[in-house]
Every structure is written in C-alpha cells, then in structure tokens.
C-alpha cells in the first residue's frame, strides 16, 4: 500500500459517510432542492474529484511530517549548539524529553506578538515575501519522496513525477527572490543590502551546485527521484563522486544560508539582515523556514548522494531516509556553530574560482565513469 492508495481509501470512506447526508436530503426535500443535493453527492463521488482531494490530503500528510521534522531540527540545532558551546541547550520546557517543547513555547510566544508593518514599507511586498519564502520551500518538497511508497503520487500505481529532481531544485532556488522582495519592500538600508547580497550570493553557489546535480543525472540516467536512488543500489554516489558531494554540501550551506555563508542576514553587520523589519510570527515563519530549508537540503543530499531510502531491511525506507537527512543536517549545524562568517566577495571568489572548477572536474569524472560502463 502506498500513500496514494491509503489517502484514496480514506477519502472514499469519508465521502461515502458524508454522501449519506446529501442523498438523504436529496430523497426527502422537494425536487428543486433535492436534485441539487443529489448532484452534490454525485460530484463528490466522481473519480476525478476524489483524486484531487486525495492529492490534497497527501500534501497535508507530507507537510505535517515535514513540520514535525522541522521541530526536531530546531531542537537538534539547539542541542548541538549547547554541546559545542559547553552548556546544556534547552532543557526546561519538556524536561523529560530533553527540552523538545521549547520550540513550541517559542512558537506560542511569536504567535502572540504584535505584527508590525513599517509605515513606509511596501505593504504588498512586505506581506508577500514570507508567503513566497515559506511556500517555495514547502513546494520544493512536493516531489521529494521519503520512499517510493511515501510520496505525493497522482495515480494508484504510485509512479513519481518524471522530472522531480529538476522541479525541486527549480523551486528551491526561488528563495533569493523572496529575500530580495523582503529586503526591498521593508524600506530599510540594512534589509536592502541583505536582499542584494542574497541575489549576488546566488550567482556563486547555484552553478556549481547544479553541475553536481548534473553529474548525478549523468550517472543515473534519470531525472526522477526513484531513478536516481535506484541507480545507487550498488554504491552511493557520494563515494565515486566524492568531490561532487563535498562541493554540493558547501553549496547547500550557501543555499540554505547557514552560518559560514549566512551573508544576507549577517547579524553583526546588518542587524538581522533582510529580516530586520519583520517581527512576530512573520519572523517566526522566516526562522522556521530556515530550518525547513535545512530539511529540504538534507533530503536532497540524501536522495542524490547518500542512497535515499536504500538500506538494510528491518528498518523501513522512510526511516532510513530521515536518518540520513538528519545526519546531513547535523553536519550543517556543526558547521554553523563552529565557523566564522565569510565575506560577500569571498564567497563569490570561492564559488567561481574553487567550487566551479571542482564541479566541472566532478562532471568529467562522472562522464568517465559512465563511458567506462561502470554505472
């Protein structure tokens, strides 16, 4: 049973339950009302409506799973920082589960804060930026499967989206647009510099990153997640494409804007960078999306280089996938808490002078492997 059939069954059961009411009303009301309710029942019962509702339900399931993971990630990040900094990290709120509830407490605190829009801000842009930022980050997960059975599918066979990897990266790379919008619409010099820095930074990491992805495409001969992962059934791509994996991880840090490369929101120079003017839950959304993007990044690295859901049998595929994603995220958190921040021109130099040649080299290695017929 895969996620689609599970959700379809659930929707089928629910529709039947609710349709009893519509049909009962259709039978007992006068004809001009009754026909209407009968038509509603028929519409709800038609196959295409149920498929649409199923896909919607699948989305809800994926979002819920994602948000639980994000809460775990925030907790891991704080605990990691505590271990690195020689203190405990959060432990008061939810004492028996290692302070896990601290995230929820912070969420409640952010929810009850007043949302302030600066008087001279561009109101629409200011409102849209968090929406685009959160939306694009969540949408990037739409095609990422936790296992072949645990993914958003559109038919009972559970086939994944054909070019899912491409779609994910395309949507994932939309964030600098939202950052630029937030930086511009806040009408503040710090946010403006932060937004423009984000746009400049994107130039440096996006190309090497996509070249590494291209090498994975070359090795696996597929653009979809199941093709890429199944091609790693013998050996993870992280081993033959070790250079590419490292370049990908470095670019990933820049993509999710964590500390060595969190130049757009450099706290000590630009106050809070592009999020300076945001407060309350809008800032909370940015904060959450920071970790959400960490999760997406970890999931992408897992699927492309670490063999996705493949692993020894007794542990199910989705759990393997999450374990690997958590490991990748832990490495990111480790880097975040132990490295200083680089400068904007230094990341451009790093991107163009170091990472790009390495990525091209990695592509050549992948092509060589493919030509030799080893993969």
């Amino acid at each position, binding site marked *: 049973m895969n996620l689609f059939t599970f959700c379809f069954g659930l929707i089928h059961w629910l529709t039947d339950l609710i349709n009893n009411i519509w049909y009962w009303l259709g039978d007992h009301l006068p004809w001009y009302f009754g026909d209407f309710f009968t038509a509603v029942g028929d519409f709800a019962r038609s196959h295409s409506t149920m498929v649409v509702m199923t896909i919607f339900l699948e989305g809800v399931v994926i979002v819920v799973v994602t948000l639980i993971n994000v809460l775990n990630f925030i907790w891991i990040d704080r605990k990691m920082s505590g271990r690195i*900094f020689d203190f405990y990290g959060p432990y008061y709120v939810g004492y028996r589960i290692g302070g896990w509830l601290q995230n929820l407490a912070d969420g409640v605190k952010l929810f009850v804060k007043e949302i302030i829009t600066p008087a001279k801000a561009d109101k629409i842009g200011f409102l849209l930026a968090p929406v685009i930022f959160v939306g694009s980050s969540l949408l990037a997960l739409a095609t990422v499967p936790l296992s072949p059975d645990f993914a958003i599918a559109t038919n009972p066979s559970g086939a994944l989206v054909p070019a899912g990897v491409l779609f994910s990266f395309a949507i994932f790379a939309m964030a600098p647009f939202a950052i630029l919008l937030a930086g511009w619409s806040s009408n503040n010099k710090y946010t403006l510099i932060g937004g423009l820095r984000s746009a400049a930074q994107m130039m440096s990491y996006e190309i090497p990153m996509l070249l590494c992805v291209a090498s994975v495409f070359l090795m696996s001969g597929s653009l979809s997640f199941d093709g890429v992962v199944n091609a790693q059934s013998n050996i993870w791509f992280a081993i033959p494409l070790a250079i590419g994996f490292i370049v990908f991880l470095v670019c990933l840090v820049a993509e999710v804007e964590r500390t060595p490369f969190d130049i757009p929101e450099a706290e*000590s120079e630009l106050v809070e960078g592009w999020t300076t003017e945001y407060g309350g839950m809008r800032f909370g959304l940015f904060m959450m999306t920071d970790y959400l993007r960490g999760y997406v990044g970890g999931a992408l690295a897992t699927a492309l280089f670490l063999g996705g859901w493949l692993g020894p049998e007794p542990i199910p595929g989705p759990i393997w996938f999450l374990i690997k994603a958590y490991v990748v995220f832990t490495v990111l958190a480790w880097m975040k808490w132990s490295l*200083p921040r680089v400068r904007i021109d230094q990341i451009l130099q790093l991107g163009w002078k170091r990472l790009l040649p390495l990525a091209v080299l990695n592509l050549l290695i992948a092509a060589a492997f493919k030509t030799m017929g080893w993969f």
Partner: protein
Amino acid sequence: MAEMWISMGPQHPMTHGLWNLRIKVDGETITDSEPELGYLHRGIEKLCENRTYTQIIPIADRLCYGSSITWSHLYCLAVEDLMGIQVPERAEYIRVLAIEMQRIASHLMWLAAYSVDLGMYAGLVYGMRDREVFIDLLMNMSGSRLTYNFPRIGGVAHDLPQNFERDALRACDYMEKRLKEYEDIYDHSSVFMMRNQDIGVLKMEDAINLGVTGPALRGSGVKYDLRKDMPYSIYPELDFEPRWHRDCDCYARYRVRMDEMWESCKIIREALKKIPKGKHRILAPRTAPEGTGIGRVEDPRGEGMIYVVGDGSDRPYRLKIRSPIFISVSAAPKILLGYKVADVVAIMGSLDMCIGETDR
C-alpha cells in the same frame, strides 16, 4: 547603487556599547565614515571635582566595565604622584597581580566579542567561560565581581586571601591550556584567516600620527609598551617582553592580544614567586597639596592617563582622563576606507571598543 550613508549604531550589534559609526557605502565598499561619540557621557571628570580623593576610586572603576581595576589603579597612581606617597612593595605586587589578571579577563572578553562579530558563536561562549576563572580570582581578592574598588591611595584594600597563590597558578595552567586550544580554533581556521589577514591595514606612520596606542599600535609594528618604556609600579623588576607584530592588519592585532595573554600568565607566575612579605597599605593623608599629579599605565586597550590638579583641599581641583579608545576611534575613517561593509565589524572589533572610558 548610488552612494548612501548607513548608521551603524547607536543600537547596533557592531557597537559593543552606545556609539554611532556612520559609514558611506558605494554598494558594499566604504568610501567615507564618521564616528559619533557621546551617547554614554556621564560627566565623570566633573563628578570627580565634587568628591573626596577616596570617593573617586569607585568612580574610576566605572570608567571601563571590561578592565575596571586598571582604571582605579591608574587613578591611585596619579594621586600618589600628587601626594608624593611611596607604596609598600607588597602592595605593588598585589596591584600587578590584579591588573594582569584583569588584562587577561579583558582580552578574553574582547576575544568573545570579536568572535561574535565575525559570526562565530562558539568563541563567544568559550571566551566568556574562561574569563570567569579570572573574574572569580579577582572576586576572591577584592570581594566584588565587576567593579572591584580594590586599590587604595597608598596600597590596596586587603591583603591576598588564603590559598590565593595556589588558585592563581591553577588558573594560569588552565589558561595556557586554553590558549593553545584557541590558537588551534582561530589560527588554523582558514575562514578566520580570510576575514582577518590584510583587513584593516593601519600603517606604522598612520598609527603613530593618529596617536593610536595599545595592541593596535603594537600590531602595527611599533614596539611601544608603557610597562617597558615608561615603567611604573614594579614592572622593571619583572622579566617579560612586550609583544608586537608587523602585519598591521586585524590578524596582527588579534595576535598581539593572544601573545599578551601568554605574557600576562608569565608575569603572574613570576610575581607570585617574588612577592615579599610586609604591609599591603600605608595610610595616606586626607588632603593633597597644591600641585599636579600624573599617572600613565598600559591599559589592556592602550595608554590610559589621568592628570590630577590638587588645590590643598580634600577634593581635586581638576581631573583629566585620557582614554585610549577615544583616540583609536578617531583612526576609524582612515582604516575603514576601501574595505567592505562586513569588514567594519572586524576592524572596529579589533580595536576593542569600550564606551565607558571613551565617553567618560
């Protein structure tokens, strides 16, 4: 992008206090800058004219929250010069122990603030954690934690506490272990070196002409340390070497401070070995004669100087404070020119701002 002025301050993570650095940027490059001070002006110099000599000691402590004992020591030096008092030798040793511990604590606080300026939060916690060791020692010695009120005109308030030598040696052992660790963390980190090398170059001539003192001057290749060049207290009897570096950049200033911490550990060990028995304080007269007194010390941040004019009463007629950072900040437009916005925090952080003494 057209050029624009950005205010970094008064409320800004870069400032470490309350001051304003206005920078003019062309894109990310700084074309002009202008420090604005005075947000924390408390009128200390005027306040001192209405206090008796003894009452000024705690006020002098409040000059700098990072190295308060240095300033009260400096004030006592100036007044002793005015009154013509010779301090007992044991008191001088206790003072040197205290100010060298304060120097380590101050440099560690600088290291913590500097790390967080560069975005490295681990450094913040490590620096503050290790500073606590020396704060505890000073608390043991004087009874309070941040503003000690420990030196007196004619000595120090108390003799050393019990087991102080053992604790201080232990702290020095701990610190030297940690300093090795810091050198692994910072000097071996290529990101840290990228942010520091060739950033904030302050040429030797510029540093001398602008009157910059302390680690910033020694980082510019000038071997000038008041402890050696104009010795006060018992520094001539101690064997140490002022540390300097010729690179003139942020890394050099960082390096000078780290080396100074090594030197301070050495001085503490030596002073503990040489400390004589005897009185820790002599009684000073309540009133000062007519005349002037001057004290100059090597503060952790540079050269501090206090000039006292006495008029025969028990209050100073005038008291002038020379703050090292007030003068170092005036070098900011010269150093900052041509660097990026992100370098502002590195450069101003490497000067080690302390607004208490700057605005007075």
